[in-house]
């Protein structure tokens, strides 16, 4: 028999527990990516001479595989005295990797702000900080929420990579079940179904959010 329902029910709680770790890694990683990405994008505008450095840095991060970056943070950082546990190292790597992508999204958002908004802020003698906080960011963020949402989903789908440094997330749990019982069909299929379900649900949510934001900006 290819599919065993009893076995499925038996492993479901183990996988559900591991799924929590996956979701945790996703949320912490995304908060890190969204914040760091915003900082990169703002610094690039506020301090013009950093522009070149930041674009090279972003290009470097985007051109190398996340898996290698995870290994790099997990294995190389300790050589410089910074020992991180697997979860922290993995989430940090994911956060930095996606910060590079997010910073480009924010940049597109800022580029879409009409020049007059900046000029008016200068004319009104607003400080750079006030301009960003009260004028630019409230206008720049809503249109890019769907793009950020897509990166959230992409980031979520990258969390199985954490299994490479033995973080107990979904994929790792499925692999351990598989190696203990020699049954891979159920655990790996369940993991796939879980990701599929989450992706489809989030696609619907992003579309709904997009519609909501469109309605608000149309008004």
């Amino acid at each position: 028999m290819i599919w065993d329902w009893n076995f499925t029910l038996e492993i479901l709680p183990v996988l559900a527990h591991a799924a929590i770790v996956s979701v945790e890694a996703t949320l912490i990683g995304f908060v890190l990516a969204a914040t760091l990405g915003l900082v990169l994008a703002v610094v690039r505008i506020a301090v013009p001479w950093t522009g070149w450095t930041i674009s090279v840095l972003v290009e470097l991060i985007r051109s190398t595989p996340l898996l290698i970056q995870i290994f790099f943070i997990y294995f190389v950082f300790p050589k410089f005295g910074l020992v991180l546990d697997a979860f922290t190292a993995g989430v940090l790597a994911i956060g930095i990797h996606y910060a590079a992508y997010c910073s480009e999204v924010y940049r597109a958002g800022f580029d879409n702000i009409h020049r007059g908004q900046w000029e008016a802020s200068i004319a009104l003698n607003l400080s750079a900080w006030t301009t960003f906080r009260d004028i630019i960011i409230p206008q720049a963020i809503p249109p890019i929420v769907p793009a950020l949402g897509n990166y959230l989903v992409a980031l979520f789908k990258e969390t199985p990579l954490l299994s490479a440094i033995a973080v107990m997330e979904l994929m790792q749990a499925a692999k351990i079940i598989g190696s203990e019982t020699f049954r891979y069909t159920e655990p790996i299929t369940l993991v796939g179904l879980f990701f599929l379900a989450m992706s489809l649900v989030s696609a619907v949510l992003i579309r709904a959010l997009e519609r909501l934001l469109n309605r608000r900006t149309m008004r």
Partner: protein
Amino acid sequence: MGIRTLVAMLAAALAVIGILATQAGYSLFMPGLLQGAMLTVEIAVLGALLALVMGVLAALVRLYGPAPLRWLATVYVEIFRGTSALVQLFWLFFVLPQFGVSLDAFPVAVMALGLNVGAYGSEVVRGAILSVARGQWEGCTALNMSRAQMLRRVILPQAFVAMIPPWGNLFIELLKSTSLVSLITLSDLAFKAQQMNQNTFKTIPIFTLVLLMYLAMSLVLTIGMRLLERRASAGLARGRAA
């Protein structure tokens, strides 16, 4: 980023690799890593070919195929876009044998990556075809062209130009995803790095070289796609002017 900056970055990356390769602490890792890089390139190229075929096929079927095939193509795209590449790789590697289909790690790697990127690619192809101006379709109808003629002579050549940049991004993703195949025992660049790291604990030189090698490969790809884009769109601009 401008093409000049990219070329400068590539030159810098290659120069650093070259200089490091002459250093004692680095040189002994070079042969193994280069061997791994060869396999990485092989998987990336074959995967990209499969992705192109699947992308175009799935897009055309979804646009013009009969209902059951269209439905099948949609399921393919949703499954491969909705789950992560690593899960697909493991599924093909560990679960497929249970159904009596035992493949070596290499074909599994090419298949998983090609199918994964092909699913994303089909959306690119579909979008590009639909973005061709309505007048072009109407013109074809007016000229009494068959659907095949219309696609081959008018629509696809124009859609092709719009497809190049997104396909470039997908190929970069594919190249980076090849590092996942190290987890199903293929000795690509990432695998060699892991293996050497476990044997020698020379973590810094190994991972520095590996990052630079991936960077160089991505940059070659990015620059190549930029040149292709420039060439293709130059032809289009001429066509429009005439």
